[in-house]
């Protein structure tokens, strides 16, 4: 596969693994959080943990837009989708995300809601054009990467004067969530967060650039390396983080220089800021309310805002008190430290955010890595 195989070369990987091994000081721990679920997926899928020294530990952060969507927002989506006049368009991996009491869009579809899986925003727009007598709502979700396509879609809907199209906006932002991990009031209850550096999400930075992380690195004294999603990208980013820690630096470095610039994609940023504005608060599954971390449509585009058009009421559902996601997302605990892990909470019946999509910390460990728990138990 051109442009992919080059970043999966075993020999280069071994070279990087050796470099990490020889440069990491065996006397100290290195705890790096990969914020993005795409990174978590790559680490699990390629078994990168096996290639790192024992004292270099990856902590799987909250960065999967599907995982972090709270149950209340799913309940709101289901209520909307159940309205007979609505065709509800969603990305496939949202279908199984649990709302309250085990409800999901997949179950709502089975009960008769007209829910359609789409692969792009353009599919949703096409459905709106083909069904002028129905109301089409697109379930917009994702970080900074998927926000520009939603913005473009709203522009197109306006240009085509589509009166039957709106967006249920759930776009969220990465920098405020990263900040929340280190300074949320929850930390008093959870315990000390021990993170020595962050692997920053490259796809997000193709849009926002590396600059927004500079404040973060400076303020919290934590190195950030923006990394691509191929396994070699990850290994190189980890080596760069080890070097920053060893040299007592805390800078933003760009491993993904093939696509990321300091200022990002100016046109995309402009389009997003024209159409969206910050919400004061947005709830993240596992993290709770995170100030200024979500987007909503500006008043000028209210007619495309499903929450306004259908007078949607905000629904709140409390997380299961036994669930340790808050601590796991902050690296304070590991998936196996949670009593629910692998018992009542599995990928088939997820309770907490970390198990919701395949990119969550617990789901990734359950699906790809739990054989290591048995190996460790045997070894001890």
């Amino acid at each position, binding site marked *: *596969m051109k442009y*992919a195989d080059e970043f*999966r070369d*075993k020999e280069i*990987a*071994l070279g990087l*693994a050796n470099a990490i091994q020889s440069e990491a000081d065996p006397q100290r721990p290195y705890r790096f959080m990969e914020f*993005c*679920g*795409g990174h978590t*997926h790559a680490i*699990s*899928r*390629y*078994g*990168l*943990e*096996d*290639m790192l020294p024992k004292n270099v530990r990856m902590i799987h952060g909250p960065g*999967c*837009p*599907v995982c972090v969507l709270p149950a209340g927002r799913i309940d709101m989506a289901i209520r909307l989708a159940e309205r007979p006049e609505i065709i509800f368009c969603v*990305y*496939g*991996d*949202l*279908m*199984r995300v649990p709302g309250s009491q085990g409800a999901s869009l*997949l179950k709502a579809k089975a009960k008769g809601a007209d829910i359609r*899986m*789409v*692969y792009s925003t353009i*599919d949703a727009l096409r459905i709106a054009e083909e069904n002028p007598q129905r109301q089409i709502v697109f379930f917009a*979700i*994702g*970080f900074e*990467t*998927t926000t520009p396509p939603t913005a473009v879609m709203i522009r197109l809907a306006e240009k085509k004067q589509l009166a039957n199209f709106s967006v249920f906006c759930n776009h969220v932002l990465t920098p405020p969530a990263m900040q929340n991990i280190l300074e949320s009031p929850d930390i008093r209850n959870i315990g000390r967060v021990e993170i020595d550096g962050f692997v920053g999400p490259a*796809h997000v930075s193709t849009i926002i650039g590396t600059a927004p992380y500079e404040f973060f690195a400076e303020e919290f004294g934590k190195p950030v390396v923006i990394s691509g999603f191929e*396994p070699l990208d990850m290994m190189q980013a980890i080596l760069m983080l080890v070097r920053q820690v060893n040299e007592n630096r805390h800078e933003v470095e760009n491993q993904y220089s093939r696509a990321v610039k300091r200022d990002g994609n100016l046109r995309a940023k402009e389009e997003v800021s024209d159409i969206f504005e910050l919400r004061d608060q947005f709830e993240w599954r596992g993290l709770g309310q995170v100030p200024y971390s979500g987007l909503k449509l500006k008043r000028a585009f209210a007619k495309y805002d499903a929450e306004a058009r259908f007078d949607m009421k905000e629904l709140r559902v409390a997380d299961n008190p036994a669930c340790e996601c808050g601590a796991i997302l902050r690296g304070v605990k590991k998936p196996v430290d949670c009593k629910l892990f692998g018992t009542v909470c*599995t*990928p*088939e019946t997820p309770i907490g955010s970390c198990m919701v*999509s*395949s*990119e969550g910390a617990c789901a990734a460990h*359950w*699906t*790809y*890595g*739990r*054989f290591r728990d*048995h190996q460790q138990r045997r070894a001890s």
Partner: protein
Amino acid sequence: MKAHQRKLDIKNGCVDLSHGSGGRAMAQLISGLFHSAFGNEWLARGNDQSAFDVAAGRMVMTTDGYVVSPLFFPGGNIGSLAVHGTVNDIAMAGARPLYLSASFIIEEGFRFSDLKMIAESMGEAARAAGVHIITGDTKVVERGKADGLFISTAGVGVVPDGLDLSAEKARVGDRVLISGTLGDHGVAIMSKRQNLAFETEIVSDSASLHDLVAKMVTAGGEGIRLMRDPTRGGLAAALNEIAQQSGLGFRVQEEAIPVKPGVAAACELLGLDPLYVANEGKLVAIVAPEAAAAVLATMRAHPLGCDAADIGEAVADDHHFVQMATSFGGGRIVDWLSGEQLPRIC
């Protein structure tokens, strides 16, 4: 006086409720379309069932339902798929497939021309596999109550004397052989859904494997412990199933698992894992180590096994994990799929 009955207008006509009513229209559909496509002495007798002779040996029987969408895909259609799938279920027992039944649930409005094409490809697939479709059933349901056409089949075959393939025969150290590239069928189907267009046309691997199986059995004899066709859930589901049934674990090498570049690229794009994608012309065989080389050579000499590979081994594991050494140098589990494999957004 013989009642006048207009001929089926195959070119422009379509199935209506009368074609499932048990009356003359249904008889005309069956004789004019299905019998001519499947044509054999058993059907010609026109009974509601067929009596048939069998050779000595143990019988195997299977049943299956086909609800594929779209009905026509690169490399086949629901008809040929129904024959291949049923033949393969029989062949995985090492059996020689003999007879099939076919039941059609047709949605009102389904075009005769499409039905004819599907029936003819069923007939062709059956003749190529040396099996006969000797009994069947036709139902027509109202528009909106079926997705065009559903086909249910049953099949019987005979296992040669002395052959008994079964998961509990697997032993630690046995080799895991796969007959070719993974994921071709699932990706071919997906490429025609949701208007996904790929630069390279990916063709389904839908095929009857009975001949390949017969040659493998000759080459491997009792060394072949069991075989399984990795259909829905792909190789991952097949190996997890065998691990549970045999009480063993498996360790496979990602580098050894054959996947076509086009299929790998499509899966990458959609966020799917080819290990979980369906196949309709592939088999997994668990083979004793001393027989593995001969069986693999036989597979590779067959057109349906030319990309066959030895991908790993059976290991002792109380947890029955299917573990994989990744091509990158790490390790992971290949777990059961949780629900349906859905494209990821990032």
